[in-house]
């Protein structure tokens, strides 16, 4: 009885929060859905009319859509690859005892506190700029032709910038995981004849598997919606070379004033994000159990 009462009370208590969250999610979602079926252009207001699936047809058959889809996947995959491999290596390094450990650890986290727009602009103007950038300076110092990163390898440059921002996150999570590894296991493996590489492969990596899963899941959620870094560096260009889905939807709605088409893109993006999520959960979700 008591538990039934308290359960009912608990439901009552949390219901305002649940309703708020639900409304928060449902209202924009249904508005997006609604707009996606309208011919709705900001340049001709008051002329909205029902068009059925036309917006979807246009969005899905647009070559820009496939370019953006590929770029989104490349961006997510590339950043994940760099942050996880780099994060594991940095975590291994930071786990060693050395002088000034505390300060170095704080420095490593620092990029995470820099706003995406700021860090992207710093990269664009101070590192990658073909005239004034540090990279150009080094290239000239070595007698090489400076490389114009943002126009010749735009997607790669953005991957680099975003990876730099997320590397600290991955490093931090993996470092804490590494520190929770029982040192006796490593000593046992050492006595069993495992060299460092074997200890890494057979003991550390399996121990890190769960944390790597967490890093992949969290980062994927954020990386699917990278936007600011593209806006302030390449504006999605040249052509569609660095346009991802988020940026394409922005361009559709606010540069071409086509709210209907943008909303259709948004719905497609939601569906794609869910497909990626299901795929990820299937693939690595078992690491989270037990």
């Amino acid at each position, binding site marked *: 009885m008591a538990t039934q009462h308290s359960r009912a009370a608990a439901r009552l208590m949390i219901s305002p929060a649940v309703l708020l969250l639900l409304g928060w999610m449902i209202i924009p979602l249904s508005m997006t859905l609604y707009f996606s079926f309208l011919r709705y252009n900001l340049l001709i207001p008051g002329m909205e009319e029902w068009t059925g699936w036309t917006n979807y047809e246009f969005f899905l058959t647009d070559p820009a859509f496939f370019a953006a889809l590929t770029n989104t996947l490349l961006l997510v995959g590339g950043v994940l690859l760099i942050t996880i491999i780099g994060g594991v290596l940095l975590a291994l390094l930071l786990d060693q005892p050395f002088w000034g450990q505390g300060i170095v650890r704080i420095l490593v986290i620092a990029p995470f506190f820099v706003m995406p727009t700021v860090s992207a602009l710093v990269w664009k103007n101070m590192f990658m700029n073909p005239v004034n950038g540090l990279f150009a300076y080094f290239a000239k110092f070595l007698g090489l032709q400076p490389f114009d990163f943002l126009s010749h390898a735009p997607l790669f440059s953005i991957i680099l910038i975003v990876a730099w921002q997320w590397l600290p996150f991955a490093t931090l999570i993996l470092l804490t995981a590494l520190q929770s590894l029982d040192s006796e296991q490593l*000593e*046992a493996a050492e*006595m069993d*004849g*495992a060299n460092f590489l*074997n200890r890494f492969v057979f*003991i550390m990596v*399996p121990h890190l598997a769960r944390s790597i899963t967490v890093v992949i899941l969290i980062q994927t959620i954020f990386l699917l919606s990278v936007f600011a870094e593209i806006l302030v560096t390449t504006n999605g260009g040249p052509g569609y070379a660095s346009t991802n889905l988020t940026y394409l939807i922005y361009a559709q709605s606010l540069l071409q004033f086509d709210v209907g088409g943008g909303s259709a893109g948004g719905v497609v993006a939601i569906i794609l994000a869910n497909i990626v999520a299901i795929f990820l959960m299937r693939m690595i979700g078992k690491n989270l159990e*037990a």
Partner: protein
Amino acid sequence: MGQITLNQITKSFGDVQVIPPLDLQIDDGEFVVFVGPSGCGKSTLLRLIAGLEDVSSGDINIDGRNATEVPPAKRGLAMVFQSYALYPHMSVRKNIAFPLRMAGIDKAAQDAKVAAAAKVLNLTDYLDRRPGQLSGGQRQRVAIGRAIVREPAAFLFDEPLSNLDAALRVNMRLEISELHQSLKTTMIYVTHDQVEAMTMADKIVVLHAGRIEQVGSPLELYHTPRNKFVAGFIGSPKMNFLSGRFATEFDAATIGVRPEHLTVSHSDGKWVGKVAVSEHLGSDTFLYVDMDGVDEPVTVRSTGEIGFRHGDTVHLTPTADKIHRFDNQDLRIA
């Protein structure tokens, strides 16, 4: 082969010397127990032998070869850790096979050795489980299995039974002793529990603050402890120490009498006191007796049941030739 000689080894962590210069000889096939209170440096000494810590000075010889600079894996020693240190993501089979796999032994030979070890340790039915699905005693056996398959020159155990409950501890104690009987390999066993030391050892090394207080067989330590520390540490319940007028009578600074070497009587005896507590275990009765001029109650162990209760006056008589005498340096007077 499994002969280990420690020659003037020391170990310091920073400024703190945990092991002062220490010599020890361990013969092939011996079951040696390092025993001492917590924090006295037993684990450190074992880890020095294993190679998991570097000695600050001195040499370690294994089978006549200087092993001081040899990495742990090459010393031919296998260690069983207090936490078992099993690899949680590997099956029992893979855990036991791990050292063989690292040694590059082919799969068929690995399987045969794992099967043989599993049979000895009653693990055959559990080979495909993960360590997390095993009981404490089974995990312990897996850890031992992982050590056995390497066919080491010596086994090192660091308090292997301290995570088990009392009944299982007695069982495992027997199993480890039997294992030693059948393998006849040198074993070095660390414990803070003197009962384990007394029951398992061929040779006990009593450590105190990193120093060796005495080395000897269990009964040597029991009958002729070199000093007051060993006398108090070995034997359960603890030896009673009496000083002042009790000791001067025997020309000593302190005398020690074990609880089992005191006889009790209602009417007459050498010393007199009052029963503070009496514990009846059926087979034995323990009396804790308050005596004038003695700080702690004197423990008496009698076989069978005796009719003493709290507050009764009791007369105690020590067995004459079982009195240990200690001088003012706490050393035993022969």
